[in-house]
């Protein structure tokens, strides 16, 4: 029987180690607080497992190198924070359009601009969805603990490989820097997914010719398929095309890969929601304060519950819509001026009012603040 391995880990460390367990073998990055430990740890760990680490000249180059490495069939990741995440957006869009699997970790800090580099924030929620130009598919996952960071980053890689889509791993400074107990899962029990490679002869390979308009198989560079990858809109053979039906089909297909799996991808946790009259909707480190607050509120006789969002995008619409018919109010605490609240409002369809609880001073939202906010609705 495998020995139970229990470690005290930092969130960024759990991210790095979980990524290796998921099959990560290439990391390109650039130092930036509060994500730097991920690069430091991987510079030590990746060559130990036969992988490669490179510190690139800038954030843009890191994203580019990750896409290049992934094209050779290697699982690849980069990690950054606010300003770096902004710089990565163009090449992130390239990965989304060309359907190159990759994982981008954003350990959120307070912005905009250089902001408060060492302070937590959750202000990149909308950027994570819409940061690059044009209609593009993306999946965004956000862990709520160090232990979950380890297992969720593995899911991030699996989704990225299976759907040929970039996955944003949206941490925040608190989750990144906090230390907690992690029970390391037995590697034999982990589900690790690899992209589907073509098996047909080269002459028949259509790199973007997906069966049933879904996810096409992807050939590794160097495997003899000799295909063309371009950031221009392209036909099923990968060659550039102009305006028209084929262009529309491409954009619709790459977005549909995610849309048609929205329910399956939607991960969330409901705490004390069975009979809740007020739903606190939150994600990341703020959800920890929310859960603590809900328990305190129960003691005080207020029926509060928490919906903790794990898959931020595609947003778990149904759980909010369902709750909207049962609760008398939503309270949405978040370390920004109300980005998650907008989504909750959209999905509640007017079923219950949505109260924002924002904090943008670079400090955590405390359970007391949430208790007070819930009592006030």
């Amino acid at each position, binding site marked *: 029987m495998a020995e139970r391995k229990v470690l005290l880990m930092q969130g960024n460390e759990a991210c790095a180690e979980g990524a290796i367990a998921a099959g990560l073998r290439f990391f390109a990055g650039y130092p930036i607080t509060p994500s730097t430990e991920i690069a430091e740890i991987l510079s030590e760990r990746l060559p130990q497992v036969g992988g490669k680490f490179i510190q690139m000249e800038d954030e843009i*180059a*890191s994203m*580019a*190198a990750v896409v290049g490495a992934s094209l*050779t069939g*290697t699982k690849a990741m980069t990690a950054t924070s606010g300003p770096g995440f902004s710089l990565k957006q163009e*090449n992130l869009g390239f990965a989304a359009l060309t359907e190159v699997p990759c994982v981008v970790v954003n350990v959120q800090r307070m912005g905009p601009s250089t902001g408060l580099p060492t302070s937590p924030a959750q202000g990149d929620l909308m950027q994570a969805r819409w940061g690059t130009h044009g209609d593009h598919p993306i999946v965004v996952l956000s862990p709520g603990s160090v232990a979950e960071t380890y297992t969720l980053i593995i899911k991030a890689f699996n989704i990225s490989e299976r759907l040929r889509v970039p996955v944003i791993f949206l941490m925040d400074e608190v989750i990144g820097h906090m230390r907690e107990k992690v029970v390391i899962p037995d590697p034999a029990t982990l589900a690790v997914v690899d992209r589907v490679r073509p098996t047909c002869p080269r002459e028949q390979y259509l790199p973007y010719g997906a069966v049933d308009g879904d996810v096409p198989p992807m050939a590794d560079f*160097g495997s*003899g398929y000799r295909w063309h990858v371009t950031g221009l809109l392209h036909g099923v053979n990968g060659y550039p095309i102009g305006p028209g039906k084929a262009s529309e089909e491409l954009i619709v297909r790459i977005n549909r890969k995610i849309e048609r799996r929205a329910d399956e991808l939607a991960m969330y946790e409901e705490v004390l929601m069975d009979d809740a009259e007020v739903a606190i909707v939150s994600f990341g480190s703020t959800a920890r304060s929310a859960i603590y607050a809900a328990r305190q509120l129960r003691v005080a006789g207020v029926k509060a519950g928490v919906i903790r969002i794990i898959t931020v995008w595609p947003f778990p619409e149904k759980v909010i819509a369902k709750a909207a018919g049962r609760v008398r109010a939503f309270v949405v605490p978040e370390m920004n001026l109300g980005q998650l609240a907008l989504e909750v409002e959209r999905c509640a369809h007017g079923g219950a009012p949505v109260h924002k609880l924002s904090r943008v001073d670079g400090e955590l939202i405390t359970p007391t603040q949430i208790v007070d906010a819930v009592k006030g609705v």
Partner: protein
Amino acid sequence: MSEVVRKYLRADMMPTIWCPGCGHGIIMGAVIRAIDQLGLDQNKTVIVSGIGCASRAPGYMDFDTLHTTHGRALAFATGIKLANPELTVIVLTGDGDAAAIGGNHLIHAARRNIDITTVCFNNSIYGMTSGQYSPMTPKGYSATTAPYGNIDRPFDLCELVKAAGATYVARSTAAHPRALTDLVAKAISHHGFSFVEAISGCPTYFGRKNKIGDAPAMINWMKEHSVPARAVEKLTPEQRAGKFPIGELYVSEEPEYVDEYVNVIIPRAKERAAKAE
């Protein structure tokens, strides 16, 4: 169609987007002939580019090809080469792509001495966007964004990459296709970061705007303004004015980046991992 063209070009991608008289086709021809001369494995050769007229070349070439974002070809190529060192990686880029928006990646790829060959199609202008001045537009020349003449000083790209650490540097022109082919072949054979500046002609935007003339006039201009590198020393400063050296400009042997990673980093990492167990 020659055998080389049939073998290495994607006939179904023709015709090219390049204007009549553009020098880029000659340079792409030199690259495939160099690949043929070396007998590279077509399945293990990757061609990477950025954005611009030159960067459309990989689309016409029958290899694994990657047409990336503006200026970033070398950063993508670095990921490919480091992840799979078995692959021969060639970057085709233009003067705007390599020297302006991609300048940082160019000097850092040179600094690392990573085994990638870069061929810069230098036509002294942004052709794709119809004729704005680039960092390679000579001073005093006109462009759509330099209606009063260009006051920017151009780079000497070969000197730049040499100073940054490139270990093979050469220059040729679209008027010297045979010499260019040989230099590209030598650059690809070189183990380390190699750079070939290939002077191209853009009659449509650079030539017309600056009244240099049509495509043959531009080819003649390249012949008249280039001097073999070994002959430059013999010229007086007056004779040298306005001329550029062509041929092999710099060759040296330095440790190559991926080799260093494989030979230095990985054994040390494995040793540390073994100790920890």
